[in-house]
C-alpha cells in the first residue's frame, strides 16, 4: 500500500471507528427483556464495589443462590459506586435515563422519581405472592412510597434518629453512660464536660453543609414538637419559637460554652471522621451511623451507644424517620416486575437471607444487633423471626442500644421536597455555628422566604 493510500485508509478507519463508537454509545441494551432460553433478565443496582470484598462475595453468593432457586430469572448486577447514597449521582442517572430496571432510592426521592417519569406503578404486582413477607412490612413505609393510591417502590430499610454518644468520652468526663442526656439542657451540660477534656474534642457535634445541616435542623425541630412545613405542605413553618430555640441551643453551645469544636461546616463524612477518631462526644444520628463509624472511619463499636432523641423539657416529642427502597423502571414487562420483586423479597425482605443473613454476617464482623432496619410492623411474624435471629447472632453489645429501643418516640417523615429544603436550611445552621454575631431571627426569616419561594415554584 502506498503512503497516500495508507493515509486514506487510516482516515476512513478513523471515521468509521468514531461513527461506530458513537452508535454504540447511543444504543440501548437490547437484552433487557428476555434471553435466548426464554429467561427473564433484570438489571439491579447497588452491587457492592470491588473493594468491599466480603460484601461483594455475599452479594454474588445471593445472586447465585437466587438464580439456582429461580432458574428462569437472570440477575444482572450493576455496581455504580456512590449512586446508592449520593443524591447528585442518583439525579444524573435518573435524568439521563440510565437507572437499572430495579433501582435504589431514598424515601425522599419519590417526587423526583415520579417527575422524571422513570418509575412504574407496581401496585398490582406487590403482594404476598411475589413478596412472602409483604403483609408484615410496616404499612406506613408502603405509604411513603405511594402517591395517589399507587405504589411505586418497595421499602427495604427504615431508620429513626436518636442521640449517639461516645461511652469512652462519657466515662473520661465523669458522666454516667447508663443515664445519657434526656433534654437539650442535659446535652448542653454534658457537652461542656466532655469538651473540657481538651485535645480538640467536641462535646456535641452538628452538621451545617451539604444538605445535612437542614436534615438535622428538621430532626431537632421535630424533637421540640415542631414541623418544617404547614399541614398542607404549602408553606414553611419553622420561623417560630421552636425554630428559634433549636438555633439558640446550638449557638449557646458553640459560642456560649465553646463545646462544639473549632471545625464547622461539617457534612456527613466530616462528622463521622471526627467521631471515628474519638473527637466527638455526642451527635444525633440513626443506629447505622455507628456502623459507618466502624466500617468506614476506623471507630470501635464498643465505644458507641444510643439513647432516644432529647426534647426541650423532657423526651423528644417526635423524631425524624427515613429510609430507602427499590423502584421499578417504567416499561418493564410484568414478568420482569415479578422477577424484580422476587429478587428484592429474597435479598432484602426475608429473615435469614440477604440483608438479614445474620448467621453469615456475624463472623464477618458486620454489625448484628443494631435496632435497624425498622422494616416490619410491630408484632408481625417477620418481625418476630428477624428479632430472634438478630438476638441469636448479635455481635455488637445490644445493651448499648437498649435505652433507644425501649423508649420509642413518634416517628415523623421527611418533608416534601426534603433535599431542596435541607439545602436552604444549611445556611441557618452554618450561620449560628460559624458566626458569633449571627441574627437568628434574620436567618430564619431568610430561610422561610426561600422555602416559600421554592414551594410556590414547585407547585
Amino acid at each position: 500500500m502506498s503512503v497516500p493510500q495508507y493515509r486514506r485508509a487510516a482516515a476512513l478507519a478513523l471515521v468509521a471507528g468514531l461513527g461506530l463508537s458513537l452508535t454504540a454509545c447511543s444504543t440501548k441494551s437490547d437484552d433487557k427483556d428476555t434471553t435466548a432460553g426464554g429467561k427473564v433478565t433484570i438489571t439491579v443496582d447497588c452491587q457492592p464495589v470491588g473493594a468491599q470484598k466480603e460484601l461483594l462475595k455475599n452479594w454474588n453468593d445471593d445472586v447465585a443462590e437466587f438464580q439456582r432457586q429461580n432458574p428462569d430469572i437472570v440477575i444482572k448486577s450493576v455496581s455504580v459506586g456512590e449512586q446508592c447514597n449520593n443524591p447528585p449521582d442518583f439525579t444524573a442517572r435518573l435524568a439521563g435515563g440510565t437507572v437499572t430496571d430495579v433501582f435504589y432510592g431514598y424515601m425522599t426521592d419519590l417526587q423526583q422519581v415520579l417527575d422524571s417519569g422513570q418509575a412504574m406503578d407496581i401496585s398490582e404486582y406487590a403482594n404476598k405472592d411475589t413478596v412472602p413477607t409483604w403483609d408484615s412490612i410496616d404499612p406506613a413505609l408502603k405509604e411513603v412510597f405511594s402517591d395517589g393510591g399507587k405504589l411505586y417502590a418497595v421499602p427495604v430499610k427504615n431508620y429513626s434518629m436518636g442521640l449517639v454518644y461516645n461511652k469512652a468520652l462519657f466515662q473520661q468526663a465523669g458522666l454516667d453512660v447508663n443515664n445519657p442526656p434526656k433534654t437539650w439542657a442535659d446535652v448542653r451540660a454534658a457537652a461542656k464536660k466532655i469538651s473540657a477534656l481538651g485535645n480538640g474534642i467536641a462535646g456535641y457535634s452538628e452538621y451545617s453543609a451539604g444538605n445535612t445541616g437542614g436534615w438535622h435542623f428538621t430532626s431537632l425541630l421535630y424533637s421540640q414538637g415542631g414541623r418544617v412545613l404547614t399541614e398542607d405542605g404549602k408553606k414553611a413553618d419553622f420561623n417560630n419559637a421552636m425554630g428559634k430555640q433549636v438555633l439558640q441551643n446550638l449557638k449557646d453551645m458553640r459560642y456560649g460554652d465553646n463545646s462544639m469544636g473549632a471545625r464547622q461546616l461539617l457534612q456527613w463524612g466530616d462528622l463521622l471522621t471526627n467521631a471515628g477518631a474519638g473527637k466527638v462526644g455526642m451527635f444525633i444520628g440513626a443506629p447505622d451511623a455507628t456502623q459507618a463509624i466502624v466500617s468506614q472511619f476506623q471507630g470501635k463499636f464498643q465505644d458507641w451507644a444510643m439513647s432516644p432523641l432529647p426534647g426541650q423539657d423532657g423526651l423528644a416529642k417526635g423524631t425524624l424517620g427515613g429510609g430507602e427502597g427499590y423502584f421499578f423502571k417504567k416499561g418493564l414487562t410484568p414478568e420482569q416486575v415479578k422477577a424484580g420483586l422476587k429478587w428484592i423479597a429474597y435479598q432484602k425482605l426475608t429473615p435469614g437471607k440477604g440483608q438479614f443473613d445474620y448467621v453469615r454476617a456475624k463472623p464477618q464482623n458486620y454489625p448484628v444487633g443494631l435496632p435497624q432496619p425498622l422494616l416490619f410492623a410491630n408484632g408481625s411474624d417477620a418481625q418476630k423471626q428477624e428479632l430472634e435471629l438478630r438476638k441469636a447472632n448479635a455481635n455488637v453489645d445490644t445493651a448499648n442500644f437498649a435505652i433507644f429501643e425501649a423508649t420509642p418516640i413518634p416517628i415523623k417523615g421527611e418533608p416534601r421536597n426534603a433535599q431542596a429544603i435541607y439545602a436552604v436550611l444549611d445556611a441557618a445552621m452554618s450561620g449560628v455555628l460559624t458566626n458569633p454575631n449571627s441574627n437568628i431571627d434574620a436567618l430564619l426569616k431568610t430561610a422561610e422566604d426561600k422555602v416559600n419561594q421554592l414551594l410556590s415554584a414547585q407547585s
Partner: protein
Amino acid sequence: MTITTVPETPRKPGRPMSPYPVGPQRTNLGRKVRDNLTGHAFLIGAVLCFVVFSWYPMIRGIVMSFQRTRRGETTWVGWDNYLRIVDDPSFWTAWKNTAYFTVLALVLGYVVPFFVAILLNEFRHAKGYLRILVYLPVMLPPASALFLFKFYAYDPSEAGLFNAILKALHLPTSQWMQSPGMTMPAMVLASTWMNMGGAVLIYLASLQNIPGELYEAAELDGAGIWKRIRHVTIPQTRLILALLAMLQIVATMQVFIEPLILANGAGAEDSATSVAYLIYQHGFFQNDLNGAAALGVIMLVVLAGFSAVYVRLTAKQD
C-alpha cells in the same frame, strides 16, 4: 543599453505558497472532495466530537430552559423558568458572590502572576528550576490542592498552617472558610496558588518576545524599572494581557470546585454560593433541571457578553 527591471509584485501576506506544483484548476466538487479525503475525514471526526459533546449539550440546555418536566411529561413554559430562577432569593446572592470572586481573582490571580513572570524573567541563574517551582502547583490535581488548603492551611484551630503562622507573628488568627467574611478571599488565595503557574508561563513567553533593544533604549533614556514596565513591557504584552484578562474573567465566573470542596458547597451563611454551584444545587439537589438550564443560559449570555467586549476591544487595538 538601458536595462529596465520590472518591480516584483509584493506577495500578499497570509496564506503561504504551496510547496507542491500547482496543477490545472479543478472545478468538479466530487474530485475536490476525493482529493482532500484525508483532510475531510479528520475534519469530520473533529466536527462530530464538537457536535456530540459540545454543541448538542449546549443546544439541549437552551431548549430545556424553556421546558418543564413533570411526571415524565415535558411541556413548553416560555420564560417561566427564567422568571422563577431570577425570583430565587439565592440568585442575587450567587451573582454577588461570583462577581466578588471574579474581581478578587482579577486583582490577585491576574496581576500577581504578571509580576512573578517579570521577576522570573529578570533572574539570570536557575531560571529553569524557578519556573518548575512556580509551575508545580498546576500539576497537582485541583481537588488534592484544595483538600490541602481545607484541612491543612485553613484549619480554623490554632493547629492550622496559616493560623500557626499568624500566631507566630503575634497576629490575630482567622476562622478562614468558616467566617462568612473570609470565605471569598480564602477561596481566591487557594485558586491563585493552584492556577498561577500557567499564567506565569504564558506571561514569560510573551516577555521573552520583547526585543531587548527596547529595554536598552529605555535604559539609555534613563528609564527606571517601573518606567520600563509601564512604557515597554505593558504595551508590548497588551494583547496577551487582554487575552488572559478575558480568560480569567470567563474562568473565574464559572468558579465551582472551590466552593464545593473548600466550603462544602454553600459555605458559611451562603457566602460561597457561586452561580455555577447554584446551577448544580438546582439541578442535582432541588430536582429542578429546567431551572438549572435557565440559569446556565443566563450565565452563557453574560460570559458571551464579556467575550464580545474582548473581541471588540482587541479588534480596535489591532
